[in-house]
């Protein structure tokens, strides 16, 4: 057990291997830092974290070192004494910040990072309010094309080298480098070798300042207008924890949220940039029913009971003539409700797992320049392009005893076994086309085809009823990733004019009263499904592992 003394307060850090930045954080003390990042190698070059340190001897006396040390490079040991507010420490911090601003353009009013910028924040907290420099600043050229998704405002760079280390150590692709020396050093790519690896935009999050910016987000919103919700990426079974940044019912940005249990610190560009469809105008706004051959808007208050009684009627004739396809984009709660709905109408109702999109192989990083994985995996984009196959399967296994694949639903529809089929979809564009033309031909043979989806498709065009679906940005619930980690997502924006999530639709059809409460529902399903028992508890920010 080790005790570290930070600004006079003793903190027990146990057996953890921490540097002084981390140890101080435990004591609630911030040591400003730029170049250090827990996922990258230590270079201790920005010199932002300089502090005075010493050692507390067993006899209680303290011997301070004459030199300041970088806190990020200094391990916290038993008896380490740190003073972050001594004259020397404060002087060093102030001088480093003054240095960083010498050649900085101070164009905060037009900088995307303003409001969440490390240079602004630390200058405010540890720097000086005025400049002593009257010299002309260096003005290296901005590089608007260093990659498809990233742009570089060279003059804002503080040369922390995080971006360079990311491409060397995490993606492995090494596109970024530093050109020139001294105060003329600048970040660049090699000619004709743009920063286009699949993890590229992480450098934007890593960049402490507004040097590297996301082209997708650039000039869309001032960050102080954004609100943030905890979410999980739906684009593959890795299930990266995310921050979902939104304002006035529009999703503006996804950022990775640190989660050692899930993906770590980063996310891939595919997942990050695949949110536009949430905001898309083409989405269904109201439920539709076929009237005189044409899909026509209906009031849900009328349509819901109509669908229910139709299902009940058909099931009365033949129990296993009704079925539902449970999309792997449904939350666990939704899958549970839909399964319960169908089974409550007819215990023999057939439940199918929706199409599970798989593309290529798991894509593991770091990779060499040829695209071969090297060394231990630091990030993996998974081939399975959906967020919750495992969660839906757990529900199916319990409530039906087996998992029937999507192909079986297609077969049963094609051979006339099914009189009614409730197909949920909600696939993200990244998942790709989720049924083939031949499958469409089979599915449309079902007399009562109910399609719940985001946007019009050739399948919804054949449906008898169409119900708008909601995305992950609009609902509360749980996704279970490839490693059986159950993580909570939270709603940030409202699901269009229709205003109901998929879960709410199922609850309405079950004639459950009132608004859906995901947490309450989890307690209920956890009691019923042993495999999902851990969902009864608090999922926290990092989720819980199922067995």
């Amino acid at each position, binding site marked *: 057990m080790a005790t570290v003394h930070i600004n006079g307060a003793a903190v027990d850090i146990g057996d953890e291997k921490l540097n002084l930045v981390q140890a101080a954080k435990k004591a609630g003390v911030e040591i400003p830092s730029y170049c250090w990042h827990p996922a990258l190698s*230590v*270079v*201790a*070059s*920005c*010199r*932002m974290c*300089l502090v005075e340190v010493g050692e507390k001897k067993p006899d209680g006396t303290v011997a301070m*070192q*004459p*030199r*300041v*040390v*970088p806190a990020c*490079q200094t391990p916290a040991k038993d008896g380490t004494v740190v003073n972050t507010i001594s004259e*020397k420490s404060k*002087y*060093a911090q102030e*001088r*480093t910040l003054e*240095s*960083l601003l*010498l*050649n900085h353009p101070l164009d905060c009013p037009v900088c995307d990072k303003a409001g969440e910028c490390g240079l602004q924040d630390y200058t405010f907290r540890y720097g000086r309010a005025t400049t*002593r*420099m*009257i*010299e*002309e600043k*260096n003005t290296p050229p901005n590089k608007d094309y260093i990659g498809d998704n990233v742009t570089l405002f060279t003059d804002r760079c*503080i*040369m922390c*080298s995080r971006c360079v280390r990311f491409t060397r150590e995490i993606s492995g692709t090494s596109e970024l480098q*530093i050109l*020139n*020396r*001294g*105060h*003329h*050093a600048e970040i660049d790519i090699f000619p004709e070798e743009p920063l286009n690896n699949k993890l590229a935009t992480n450098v934007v999050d890593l960049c402490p300042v507004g040097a590297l910016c996301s082209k997708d987000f650039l000039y869309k919103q001032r960050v102080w207008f954004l609100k943030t919700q905890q979410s999980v990426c739906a684009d593959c079974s890795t299930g990266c924890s995310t921050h979902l940044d939104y304002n006035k019912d529009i999703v503006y940005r996804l950022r990775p949220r640190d989660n050692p249990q899930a993906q770590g610190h980063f996310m891939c560009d595919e997942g990050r940039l695949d949110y536009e469809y949430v905001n898309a105008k083409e989405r269904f706004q109201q439920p539709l029913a076929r009237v005189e051959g044409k899909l026509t808007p209906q009031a849900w208050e009328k349509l819901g009971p109509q669908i229910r009684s139709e299902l009940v009627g058909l099931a009365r004739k033949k129990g296993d003539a009704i079925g539902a396809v449970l999309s792997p984009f449904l939350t666990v709660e939704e899958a549970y409700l839909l399964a319960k709905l169908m089974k409550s109408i007819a215990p023999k109702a057939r439940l199918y797992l929706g199409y599970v999109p798989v593309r290529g192989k798991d894509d593991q990083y770091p990779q060499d320049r040829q695209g071969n994985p090297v060394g231990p995996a630091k990030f993996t984009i998974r081939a399975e392009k959906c967020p919750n196959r495992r969660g839906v399967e757990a529900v199916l296994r319990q409530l039906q005893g087996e998992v029937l694949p999507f192909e079986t639903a297609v077969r049963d529809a094609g051979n006339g076994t099914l009189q009614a089929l409730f197909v949920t979809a909600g696939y993200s564009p990244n998942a790709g086309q989720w049924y083939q033309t031949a499958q469409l031909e089979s599915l449309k043979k079902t007399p009562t085809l109910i399609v719940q989806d985001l946007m019009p498709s050739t399948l919804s065009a054949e449906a008898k009823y169409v119900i708008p679906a909601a995305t992950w940005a609009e609902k509360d619930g749980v996704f279970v990733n490839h490693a059986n980690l159950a993580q909570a997502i939270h709603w940030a924006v409202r699901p269009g004019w229709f205003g109901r999530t998929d879960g709410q639709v199922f609850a309405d059809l079950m004639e459950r009263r009132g608004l859906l409460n995901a947490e309450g529902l989890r307690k209920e399903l956890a009691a019923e499904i042993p495999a999902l028992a851990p969902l009864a508890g608090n999922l926290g920010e990092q989720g819980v592992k199922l067995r």
Partner: protein
Amino acid sequence: MTEFEPVLLKRISKKASPSLDAYRADGGYRALTKALNEMTPAYVVDSVKASGMRGRGGAGFPCGVKWTFLPKDHPGPIYLCINADESEPCTFNNRILMEEDPHQVLEGVVLACYAIGAKTAYFYLRYEYGRAYRALQKAIDEMYAAGLLGKNIMGKGLDCDIFLHRGAGAYICGEETGLIESLEGKRGWPRIKPPFPAIEGAFRKPTIVNNVETMACVTHIIDRGADWFKSIGVPPDPKNPRDAGSYGPKLYCISGHVNNPGCVELPLGVTVRELIDKHGGGVWKGRKAKGVIPGGISMGIMTEAEFDTPLDFNGPGKVGCLGLGTAAITVFDDQTSIVDVLYGIARFFAHESCGQCTPCREGTGWMMKILDRMRKGLGRVEDLKILDDVAKSIGIMPGTTICGLADGAGWPIKNAVQKFRSELEEYIRKGERSTAASLQMVGAH
């Protein structure tokens, strides 16, 4: 006092041939023969330790002590790197040794490899030294042909290879970990320590980095014994408990405004005045000196009044300088503007800062810009405070940067602001301007 008889420059002063045969005829490779026949590696290490010889590369770390920092019983490989980057302005002692008497250096290299258990030595040579490159390569070829390199040297089972590696021309690649990074094919960015190179150096293996002149000294220590070496130079200063003494002969470079610039060998401890007057032929054009830049330009500035300071490892510190450095003095006469001297120095460091540490990267550039403005007659008295403050934060306050380049950049500024304050203030007040003349002096790299 009898004239000191040169040791390192002995053959060079006689214009002896640099060939292997000539070197052998003058007693060359006697030390190596003796070591391989009579001494264990540990004995060689102990001898160098006992000689008290401090590294000649600038930092003055006791050579034998450094060798003992290697991990014991390491399975290898262990590497030796010879630092022949010699980029410190006004420093050319390594160059003379390599060009004129390469075997003297290379014998030391093989001895050092034997002592520390290295089978491979990388000779890191600055690119601009074409003549030294050719001389060294020729000498290395001769050694291979004579069985002095390669496998089973002198039939004594010692294996040793020397690779001559040319740098691409950057001052920072003389810093030992910058050198190692460059050797590995990377950008010459000094590493953070620990680990020190002796534990984890080139290619992540234990590595010793030594200067060229250090290697030449090793040859003579083994040839003539530690006691002989210790009989030359200056014992530790009793008033300075951290002084480890300044033993042995040293090559001093004299340049700038003197009549006879050049390189001389003298026992450590000669004064600046003696170097200028006796060996440099006095200040040029009959003028008086205003000051010298000792130890290359990284060690600070001495005024004329401080010229009686002995140039050993302990002396310069007594007058506020950083240390002995490379023992190269650059004289500037009383007509030289101190602003020009400082601008030349600042320009060098701004150009050579590798740029990874914020204070050094930005501070060196800022100091240069301020001094440039001063030279244009636009200085302000408050600039002196800023210069002093920047110098303090880029190395003078210990720990602020990764490597010693920043100290070197800060020290001359700090010294000048203190020692030449009235001249600087007057220059600013009068709005004086400068011409480019004195730039040539401080090696405008």
